[in-house]
């Protein structure tokens, strides 16, 4: 009988302990000071047209851009890995071999996932917002300015870096495209054949990992690049994304529409 009483007492005890750990709805949100934007943030969104949850990442990016400004949250959708598809005669695919190289390099194993300023490795969607909030407030060692010009089918790009503090690392230029209509699997499992893909990674303008730079404070460095768009790309929808990075991650990023 005593043992049964012990069991009953144990049951009552666990019920009481479990009952007193609720957070009321009015106390679930903690106010955070708005970010004082000091530099732009780069989100490398590893995505795929066969990834049903990837449109959720796009929604998150749009939410962040709405909160902080499109010029401060710069996203690049890297269609890569087995959930993405290469173009065929029947289907427009957005996967690139270079995207797969990045996918493999960063050890991506699930989509959607992404890099936020290349800090802390590949992050799941829920971790992006707090990292963006933090990264926006970091000081930038330089200002990046972009100018683009299209002549005779070629795109000329001029990067000007106004350097505030010494920086040794790499400068990377990518070409992205907005407004691509191509199939996308949706979170409810259906296929949206009219899905509009934005900020899609198309090519690296200056090699897979960019060019080495060694800039000193006070310098104004100007570098010129060029690329010839491929047939299926729509010139009016192309943009150049330029960013500098080193072992501490991406230090500054900017984006310009070609037209």
């Amino acid at each position: 009988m005593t043992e049964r009483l012990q069991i009953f007492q144990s049951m009552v005890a666990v019920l009481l302990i479990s009952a007193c750990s609720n957070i009321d709805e009015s106390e679930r949100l903690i106010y955070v000071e708005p970010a004082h934007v000091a530099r732009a943030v780069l989100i490398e969104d590893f995505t795929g047209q066969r990834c049903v949850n990837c449109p959720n990442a796009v929604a998150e990016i749009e939410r962040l851009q709405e909160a902080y400004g499109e010029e401060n949250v710069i996203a690049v959708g890297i269609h890569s890995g087995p959930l993405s598809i290469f173009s065929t005669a029947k289907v427009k695919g957005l996967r690139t071999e270079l995207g797969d190289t990045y996918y493999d390099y960063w050890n991506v194993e699930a989509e959607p996932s992404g890099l936020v300023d290349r800090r802390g490795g590949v992050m799941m969607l829920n971790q992006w917002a707090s990292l963006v909030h933090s990264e926006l407030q970091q000081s930038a060692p330089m200002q990046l300015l972009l100018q683009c010009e299209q002549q005779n089918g070629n795109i000329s790009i001029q990067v000007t870096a106004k350097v505030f503090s010494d920086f040794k690392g790499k400068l990377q230029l990518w070409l992205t495209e907005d407004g691509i209509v191509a199939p996308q699997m949706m979170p409810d499992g259906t296929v949206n054949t009219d899905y509009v893909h934005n900020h899609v990674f198309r090519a690296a303008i200056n090699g897979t990992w960019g060019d080495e730079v060694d800039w000193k404070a006070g310098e104004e460095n100007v570098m010129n690049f060029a690329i010839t768009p491929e047939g299926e790309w729509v010139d009016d929808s192309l943009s150049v994304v330029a960013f500098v990075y080193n072992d501490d991650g991406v230090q500054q990023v900017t984006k310009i529409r070609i037209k």
Partner: protein
Amino acid sequence: MLNERTIVVGLMLLFASRVMLAQVSVNGSIQSDVLLPQKDDGIGATDYEEWALTNTYAEVSLMSQHLDAGLRFEYLQHPLPGFENDFKGWGVPHAYVKGHFEKIELTAGTFYDQFGSGFVFRTYEERSLGIDNSLLGGRIVYKPSDKLTMKALTGKQRQYWSLSDSWISGADVEYSSGVFTFGTSFVNKHEEQEDIMTDATHKLNLPENVNAFDVRARLQKGPLSVLAEYAQKTQDPSFDNGYIYRHGYVAMLSASYSKRGASVLLQAKRSDNMSFRSERSMSGTSSFINHLPAFTMEHTYTLPALYPYATHSGGEWAYQAEGAYTFKKNTPLGGRYGTTVKLNFSHIHDIDQHPKSLNGLTAGSDGYGSSFWKWGSRMFYQELNVQIEKKISKLLKLNLMYMNKFYNKTVVEGEGGMIHSDIFVAEGKYSLSKKAILRAEAQYLFTKDDQGDWAYGLLELSLAPHWMIALSDLYNVGETHLHYYQGSVTLKADSHRFQIGYGRTRAGYNCSGGICRYIPASKGLTLSYNYNF
């Protein structure tokens, strides 16, 4: 962190081994699976940097009258395809010392345990899935009488080659009078806050303590067994549930009746938001503290297992009924040797959900409301299968199966819709001689969905007591027309088992908790060695 653990427990082992020198028994095992991968564009098997991939485990345990100790070495630096990135590594992640006396048992190090059916706590190792969610810490088991068992434990959970930041603590009390068993459990997860922002100026106030409890009662009288179990979890916003603050619930009723030649099992379970991990923002297959078993039959035949169901952690109503009856020898249905008929039916359905939000967002809200008995609109899975086991003669035994299956691929894998299939299996075992048995399987899966029909065939020759030779082919009839052929030779000698094989393994997608993981196709030479001592 793990290295510190290894050193500490290693010293304890040294101490323990000295104490036990006089009367100690040693047990252990080695398991090594190796793949020499080959590229195969046909099935999408890719190149690997390594010429060989292996999952290798070596385990040893020392046992004496009052003191046990053990450890396991794992070499997973170049793992077989399909495991998560963090799975890679090597070392001694499992080591323990256990003292056991008349009424008390004390464990220090890593350990596995389960409270009740595991709804609130289950740590276990499942190598084929890459799961080892052991706790590193301490456990005490106290048995003041034959009827009463009390447990208390605390520790940090293994996450591949590191440890979770949270602390897991729990207690379990179980009283058994023989006929009746009552039990109750409590588990606490203490995890620090982290920044999960809902918008540009708000982050979630996350609970640092998540508590879960379980109560259960079992009646075991003769052939009848009835188990009722209920578990509940406090607010646990997580990646799995979209950071909602709804409590988690699971209720189960299971009844079985078994006597010679006949058995019946009836089960029902309702789970609701019961994903419970040691890290709230973890995804993938690691870090689960609890376990929700799937109420579906586990199949060993290839095609019935082609579309397997895994418990939907968001919530589900699951029902299972199983019956078996053996018609006796020398009766019209039993024939000369008797006939066994098995029937299994399982049905898994969505629970009712009414969405709720907070400031227009799901994160931070209660997520949804749900009526206990009401179903949601989606069926997740349904299976009806009938098996007949029949010995035709002294030399030949047949096993026939028919299965009708509905598999909601969208729910389990993220896309693909409902797949309705009919599966037929015929297996025959024929004794060629006293030492030679030939086993053959023929299977066919009919479906208009997904990749269409599949066919499978197997031939297996056992030459007792040492050899076994097997050849099989899985063929997609409906769409890809790809063959997944495999062949193997197995040698058993005393406690050693060695297998060499060659073949293709098909690829698949695995999506859960809002993310997708890809299990790649592979091809190559496989080597497998097992040894127990």
